[in-house]
């Protein structure tokens, strides 16, 4: 059973590479039950967007 910490690491990796189907499934199952990790995922997308915007400022 993956912990939230494991999932948060996998979410970070998903920003840098394509996950294999098994990892995607793991994420999907966990995120469907865990509000905190879902929130963390949204925060990561925000960081990505903000950093992208930052470079053009």
């Amino acid at each position, binding site marked *: 059973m993956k*912990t*939230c*910490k*494991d999932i*948060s*690491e996998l979410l*970070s*990796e998903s*920003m*840098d*590479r394509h996950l294999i189907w098994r990892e995607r499934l793991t994420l999907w199952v966990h995120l469907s039950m865990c*509000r*905190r*990790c*879902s*929130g*963390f995922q*949204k*925060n*990561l997308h*925000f*960081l*990505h*967007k*903000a*950093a*992208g*915007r*930052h*470079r053009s*400022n």
Partner: protein
Amino acid sequence: MDKNQLNNHRTILLRYALLQLHDEAVAEDAVQETLLVALQTGDSFRSESAIRTWLIGILKHKIADHYRASERHYSLGEQISEDGGDPNAALEQLIFDGKGRWIGSPSAWSNPDHVLEQDEFWGVFDWCQKNLSQQHARAFMLREMVGLETEEICLDMNISHSACRVYLYRARLGLRECLEQRWFNAKREK
């Protein structure tokens, strides 16, 4: 090696140069010189990623030349080598309990797009980024601002793939935590 091919790499090279040189005109010059060398050498490479690694290699020399010429010994690379400790090592212990559960509760931030329009936010963003360990901040900037792939970051920073993954993870964890405390929660309390 044709001009179009090189131009595709130009944007990334320019962001990379800006990260180290902090001066647009100087960065432009360094990239221009890099592309000239590349055009003159005209080696054929197998993949696009190999070309970019090669170009960044040339660019690094140009950046080093610049610092040598101006006799300024300041560069991001040197800053990093002075950075012995790892202030973020204990970060995970503040964020997760012994069983790997969140101590706080991350949630989607409200009005994130609106936030990006506020100058005040960028002040906090920079502050948070400076507060990361320099290695972590550099990995994050190379990935999210310059747009390098993780393999390129490993080469650039001379670190293993797993170290690179950890740096990026801790940078994101630290930045997220800092922005939540310094911006999003602070705004909610007002």
